[in-house]
């Protein structure tokens, strides 16, 4: 099992009051598996991704990725682990506005210390795949929402992480663009045999997987696909 989140509980403090977000939640994913997490707004889907990525830590429970219990790692080591093993896609694209398309793309490789040539080769290859070869020197604010999300997907997978976490990747796009993005996302992650955990409201995403989990009342419930 590549990912194993066991009995994780997460509570937040709002002033002096405590708010439960996840209660004793467990989740597993194999290599190359596509897991969909659905649920109402505020049900804790994004929190779950944050815990899996090590951005946040659970109050109880553990997250194991490729035999590493990331909840036991120090903040710095969690960050380095994330850098090497996890790709992130956000609803609002979150490209760095001060870097060009190509630079945004190669940022993870840059952090991992790749050489200039290998970074450029990899970036050009992916740009071609996402159909943005002619926009490599554009800044993000010059791209449409769909184009920005394509770059974000490419950035998430360029360093071949073991897991890609996607937080509502189509939430900010129209239905047609959303569909295109999901197709692209599925193709690219399948090609590289990556594990995907996607949080979404989109029913379109259900076409790509059989493993759908519903977050309801702080618990994760497996949904049977009809």
């Amino acid at each position, binding site marked *: 099992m590549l990912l194993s989140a066991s009995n994780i509980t997460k509570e937040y403090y709002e002033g002096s009051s405590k708010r439960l977000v996840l209660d004793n939640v467990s989740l597993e994913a194999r290599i190359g598996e596509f897991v969909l997490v659905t649920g109402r707004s505020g049900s804790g889907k994004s929190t779950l991704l944050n815990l899996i990525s090590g951005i946040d830590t659970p109050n109880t429970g553990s997250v194991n990725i490729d035999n590493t219990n990331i909840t036991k790692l120090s903040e*710095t080591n969690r960050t380095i682990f994330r850098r090497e093993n996890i790709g992130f896609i956000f609803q609002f694209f979150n490209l760095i506005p*001060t*870097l060009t398309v190509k630079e945004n793309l190669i940022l993870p490789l840059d952090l991992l210390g790749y050489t200039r040539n290998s970074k450029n080769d990899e970036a050009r290859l992916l740009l071609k795949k996402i159909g943005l070869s002619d926009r490599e020197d554009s800044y993000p604010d010059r791209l449409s929402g769909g184009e920005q999300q394509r770059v974000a997907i490419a950035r998430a997978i360029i360093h071949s992480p073991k897991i890609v976490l996607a937080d509502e990747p189509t939430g900010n796009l129209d239905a047609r663009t959303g569909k295109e993005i999901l197709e692209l996302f599925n193709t690219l992650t399948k090609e590289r045999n990556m594990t995907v955990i996607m949080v979404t409201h989109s029913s379109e995403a259900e076409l790509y997987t059989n493993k759908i989990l519903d977050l309801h009342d702080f618990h994760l419930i497996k949904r049977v696909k009809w």
Partner: protein
Amino acid sequence: MLLVWKSSIRYLFRNRTYLLFSIIGIAMGVSVVVAIDLASKTAGNTFKFATEAVVGEATHKIIGGPNGLPDKIFKDIKFGTDVKDIAPIVEGIVTISETNKKVTLLGIDPFSEYGFRNFNIINSIESQNNFDSLLSVPNTVAVSQAFLETLSDDTSFQLISDDSIQNVQIVGIINPTNSINQIGFESLIITDISTAQEILNSIDILTRIDLKFQDEISSKKGISQIEMIVPSSVSIIPSGTRQKTVNEITKAFNLNLTALSLLALLVGIFLIYNTMTFSIIRRRNIIGILRAIGVTQKNIFLIFISEAIFLGIISVVLGVFLGILLAQTLLELITRTINDVFFAANVYQLQIDLFVLIKGSLLGIIASLIAAVIPSYEATRITPISAMIQSNRETSFRKILPLVSIVGLIFFIAGCILLLLPLSGIEISLLSLGCVTFGLTLQVPACTIFLLKAFNYFFKNIFSTLTFAAVRNIGASLSRISISIAALSLAVAVTIGIGLMIGSFRSTVEDWLNYSLVADIYISPPSVDSGQLQKSINTTLIQQITNLDEVNYVTKLLATELQTTEGTTQLAVVDSNIQILSESINLKKGNNSTVWKSFFTTNAIFVSEPYAYKNDIKIGDNIQLPTISGLKPFEVIGIYYDYSSSRGVILINRTIYNNNWNDIRVTSLALHTETASNSKSTIAKIEKLSKPYHPIEIQSVKEIKERSMDIFDRTFDVTSVLRLITIVVASIGILSSLIAFQIEKEKESAILRALGVTTNQFQLLTFFQTSIIGLISGLVAIPIGIIISWVLIHFINQRSFGWSMELDISFWIIIQGLLISILASMCAGIYPTFKNKSESISKALKQE
């Protein structure tokens, strides 16, 4: 990591207007520090080199009383002892007629000079030793090349001594023979001893005799031999006392200026803090993304610290350049103040000291780093989750506010404790003032919340929702805006504090002048400024003036100096009656009926307040003074208020003085006439009487008061320049905050404009907001300013100069401070207002 750095640099350049204002603000802070340091050092060095040029290699000097030394003593020592390295000197201050500059006239004996002073004299035509010309031709002088260049005629010029205008011929150029700085000779005229005696009207009198001993043994032996043959009125003291005196009297002045310049840098630090905080807040989202994709906290910290260093370096380069320019202006003001208050000195050119520039640069960079540490650390704590929640930063800012206030309180209390320590010197007092001011400034954010709440409470029914929202926006952006409010408050508080101090000082001096100047007409030789030795008035003229029908009584004064082993002591000798003296001298201590009688009959003296403070003198103490019959004790029976000299003055009765120093000179007269109304005709009569004699200056009491107050006001010109710069730096802080504020509120502004708020309405709203910011800064600054002035008056001034004064809280100065604050803030609002006008609504609305 290269791309992360690239992104950081691009961000800075994308926000270049904001960056530019921040850089200018910090650069101005640095420039003030550099300028004050350069100007003070140049002035200090010039005085030091001038002293070195005059003193040369002499180790000791023989001095007489106020009348100088008779020529004969030189011959007695030369031929009656084994001391061979001995050089007679006649020295005095003269004014150059053409340039109206005061220079030192040094009369030397070329035959005795060998090995004493580090120069020779070369003929301007043929390079040869030209001491001979000085000896053989009367009224010939040698000057430095720099001095020569200030004259229109390079062969002769006129100089004014107390009694006459003299024409002198230039026969040589002073050529330094060792590494002593050329600057030392720029304000020096060298001549033969007899020419100097003629010009300075001191025939057969020497100012001093320089001695050079090789070691301590030979000095002890030589001194004991000399003491055996010279009269007891003569003293032998080390040569270094002159520089020591100069250093002591300018130390407090320079220290206060340095403190004021550091204040501008402190305002600059607030600015850097503000810039960095804003820069981080703006990039919370980017930091969040970077952290999500694996950039560590350490990397984030390094990025922001590097940005601060980058900002610091650019600001420092600009600041050093601005500092050099500003130093030229300040040098003139500082030299003028030193001339007005302390002693005659000329500074021709700014010396650019590399060490000062490096020191200023390092200070700027270190200040940038200190200011950036907290924001950079905060940046590392940004997580991808918190980056998304906008209200988090305000919540956390408000959470740490109590801590900020407590830290401020600790600084304030520490400052108060330091102030009350009995042994506190000026340095400690300034540090205490820094702690008190910083502590109070840290209360500004809490005070801002309080004032905004009060504003909301009182005006909620008066203003429209829109106006109200504009005010509420200030509160909602407190984490950014309160730093700028604090910086502006600090600058305005200092303006109010110094303004109140100067105002209090001014009214104290005015009261003192009104109290002291009880006569109707005052007479003295011309061009005598405060702090300089006065020349004497002809005795026949004094008699003629005394005999005038209109003159009821003449108080005769002598301002002179005594050389002691501790340095130079100012002596005021007064010849008057008990009634006038008791009316014009305001005793701080020792005021009882027996004091005045003792002053006229015994070896008793009064000392001025600064003298008593600096020398720790109390009533009943004895001061040893070198008289014609050797050192004699004089009992201090009174301490009086005096604001004419920060060095301190000893006041002595004429009869007692004459008995001990045998000196009949009079340097000024105070005439008590029949009625004040006829002073004009009396002045005309005195002018007529004085025509056959050398020129004198006759002033009515009104004129002398005006002149004194002019000098007083000029003394604070440097302070005014520094206050103005501090306000400008703080205004730039507000400006950059407003730009930051506007960038943050771009979308909100676009929504308002899309909803139908006109550009004019928007501009009015921005101005309203900036006025509120200015008002808050000004209101908070008032109590801080009053506390600063209280500390300045009761501690800093007292410990720097020994003057006591009462705090006079002027309503006008407070209102002025408030208006400056509002105006500075509104000026800062002009650019953001017009920038907003040009913003595209659609573009701003599209922004995520």
